[in-house]
C-alpha cells in the first residue's frame, strides 16, 4: 500500500481500469469500419441516417460486453454523477460541432462553382484534409473529455491516413464513395486491431474469478 493517497490518481486509475479492456476501441473502430465499407459499397446520402441510428445500438451492445468481459475481471465501478453528466454534456457538444463541421465539409466537397466564396473553394480543395482534421479533433477532444489518453493515438492515425489519401487518391477534393469510405475503413481496421490486442492482454492479465 502506498504511503500517500492521491484522490485524483484514484479516479485516473479507475478510468484506466474501466477502459483497459479495449472494448471502446473495438466498438468505435467497428463503427468507423462499418461506415467506411458502407460508403465504399453503396454510397448514398440517405445512409447518414443509419450512421446516426447505429451508435445507439452500439451503446447497448457495448454495455452488454462490459458486463460480460470487464466487470467479472476488474470489478464494477460507477463514476460520480458529476463526472457522468460532464462526459455526457461534453460528448454531445463535441458530436454536434463535429456533425455541423462534417456536413459543411461534405457539402463543400460536392462540387462548387468557381464563383463561390474563397472559404468554400478552400474547403473544396482541401476537403480530405479537412475531414481528417475533424476526425483527429474529435478523438483529441474525446480523449480529454473521457480521460482516455489512448484515443490520442487515433487522432494521429487519422491525420496520417487522410494526408495519405490526399496525396494518393485520384480526386481528393470531391466527396465520393472512395474519398469518404477508404480512410474511414482503414482507421476502423486500425482501431479494431488495437482494441483486440488490448482485449487479449486484458483477458490474460485479469483471469475471471472462479
Amino acid at each position, binding site marked *: 500500500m502506498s504511503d500517500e*493517497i492521491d*484522490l485524483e490518481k*484514484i*479516479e485516473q486509475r*479507475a478510468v484506466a481500469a474501466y477502459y483497459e479492456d479495449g472494448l471502446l476501441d473495438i466498438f468505435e473502430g467497428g463503427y468507423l469500419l462499418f461506415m467506411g465499407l458502407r460508403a465504399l459499397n453503396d454510397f448514398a446520402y440517405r445512409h447518414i441516417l443509419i450512421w446516426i441510428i447505429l451508435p445507439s445500438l452500439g451503446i447497448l451492445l457495448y454495455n452488454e460486453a462490459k*458486463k460480460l468481459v470487464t*466487470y*467479472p475481471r476488474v*470489478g464494477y*465501478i460507477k463514476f460520480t454523477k458529476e463526472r457522468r453528466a460532464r462526459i455526457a454534456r461534453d460528448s454531445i457538444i463535441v458530436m454536434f460541432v463535429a456533425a455541423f463541421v462534417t456536413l459543411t465539409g461534405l457539402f463543400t466537397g460536392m462540387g462548387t462553382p468557381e464563383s463561390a466564396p474563397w472559404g468554400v473553394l478552400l474547403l473544396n480543395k482541401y476537403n480530405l484534409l479537412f475531414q481528417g482534421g475533424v476526425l483527429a479533433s474529435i478523438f483529441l477532444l474525446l480523449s480529454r473529455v473521457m480521460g482516455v489518453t489512448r484515443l490520442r493515438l487515433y487522432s494521429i492515425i487519422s491525420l496520417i491516413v487522410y494526408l495519405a489519401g490526399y496525396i494518393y487518391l485520384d480526386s481528393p477534393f470531391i466527396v465520393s464513395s472512395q474519398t469518404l469510405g477508404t480512410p474511414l475503413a482503414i482507421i476502423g481496421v486500425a482501431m479494431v486491431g488495437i482494441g483486440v490486442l488490448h482485449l487479449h492482454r486484458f483477458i490474460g492479465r485479469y483471469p475471471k474469478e472462479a
Partner: protein
Amino acid sequence: MTEQLSDSELPHLKEIDRLIHEPARLLIMAHLYMLEAADFLYLMNQTGLTFGNLSGHMTKLEDAGYIEVEKSFVDKRPNTRLSLTDAGRRAFEEYRKSMRGLLT
C-alpha cells in the same frame, strides 16, 4: 527524555476520526469518495487488501454508518456493491480538513 506535548498543544488531534484514520479504511473511503459506487472485487484489486481484511473493514465502516452495502446476484454470482452514505461523505471531508489543519 523527550518532552511530551500537552493536550492543549494538540487540539486538532482529538478531532481526528480514528475510524477513518486507519490506513486501509482511509483507502476504502478515498476510493468511494471519488467514485459513486464500487464493488468488492474492484476495491480488492485497487487497495491490495485480502478478502478477509476488506470484509472486516467494510463491516466497521458500515456499522459506523459511513458506507452502504448492497448485496445482490449478478449472473448467478454474489455481488457486493459499496457506496458512501451522506454521513460518510461528510466525515471524509471533515477528516481531510482536520488533516490539513494538523500538518502545516
